[in-house]
């Protein structure tokens, strides 16, 4: 039984694409067959985050328009053989594809994969409508900032209006040291304001940027973010993974926090 999940946020730059790439890698690591669809037509970047930018021949618009076969456009990941990317077109715009066409595309992808994950562009215009059209589940990415939370709330409203049953929250870029000092909203604060189920929280770590620099997922590296993304993926598959309490947390967390502090101090 395959599931179509949209990763969205409203606001740009909160980590949708990085989250999509890592959720894809994590699910693939758990043995699932996954396709990541970059729906940001005109501004593609999931391929770059995954390090597959040199392998693109055909793209999403080609598939939708029938210029190529579906399998010709799918690019296999370098690390996980059961992870695929359907890249976006760089020289077209959002109007090149309609929500109806996206639904048809999903129907073609669903028999081939366990998870079809749509990387949504920022904004609430056609790109958003395309990405959301076929999804039955949404992951709303936000950061502990007022602007990102406001946009997340707006997006949650639109997702509910679009009839999406499962809406989960992913709080990204948590600075544990700042939260401890009371200079950043905690996971609880964000969940309290937005009132949707929390899927997971990812700390802001150097490793995430470093992995993206290399075009590789942070999953599999020795970082808290890797653990966080793997937990998120296990929750997506339905496993009940307890939420690591980042603030008051376990001894494991405290060890990780100590590591984090050391790294921060240089």
């Amino acid at each position: 039984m395959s599931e179509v999940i949209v990763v969205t946020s409203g606001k740009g730059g909160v980590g949708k694409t990085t989250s999509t790439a890592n959720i894809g890698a994590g699910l693939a690591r758990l043995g699932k067959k996954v396709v990541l669809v970059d729906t940001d037509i005109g501004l593609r970047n999931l391929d770059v985050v995954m390090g597959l930018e040199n392998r693109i021949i055909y793209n999403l618009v080609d598939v939708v328009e029938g210029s190529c076969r579906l399998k010709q456009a799918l690019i296999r990941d370098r690390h996980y053989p059961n992870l695929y990317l359907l890249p976006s077109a760089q020289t077209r715009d959002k109007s090149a594809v309609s929500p109806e066409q996206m639904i048809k595309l999903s129907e073609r992808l669903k028999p081939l994969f366990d998870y079809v994950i749509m990387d949504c562009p920022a904004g609430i215009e056609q790109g958003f409508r395309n990405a959301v059209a076929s999804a039955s589940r949404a992951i709303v990415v936000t950061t502990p900032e007022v602007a990102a939370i406001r946009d997340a709330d707006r997006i949650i409203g639109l997702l509910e209006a679009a009839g999406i049953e499962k809406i989960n929250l992913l709080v990204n870029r948590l600075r544990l040291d700042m939260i401890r000092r009371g200079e950043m909203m905690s996971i609880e604060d964000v969940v309290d304001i937005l009132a949707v189920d929390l899927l997971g929280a990812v700390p802001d770590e150097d490793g995430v940027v470093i992995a993206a620099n290399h075009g590789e997922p942070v999953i599999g590296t020795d970082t808290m973010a890797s653990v966080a993304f793997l937990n998120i993926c296990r929750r997506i598959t339905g496993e009940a993974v307890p939420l690591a309490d980042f603030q008051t947390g376990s001894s494991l967390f405290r060890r990780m926090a100590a590591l984090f502090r050391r790294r921060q101090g240089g």
Partner: protein
Amino acid sequence: MNILAKRGLQTSSRIAKMRARQTIASDRLSCTPEEFGQMKKELMNILSKYLYLDDTVTEIRVDIVHEIKQGVPYVKTVQIK
């Protein structure tokens, strides 16, 4: 005094949370903070027509409940007096 003491302890995360709440409340109810202020004034005028409002009345609360499908119902409390 108490408020001032609290202000002194106000961390930026508390301020952020309060601001996030306010903006979201305004967004959801399609009502700007200025309109909230105006609403308070007008409600006071109406209430004072029927009620004798002096210093003995310490608090009037109006809860505007906006049911959302997911999660808990959202309540914006307008403190009129």
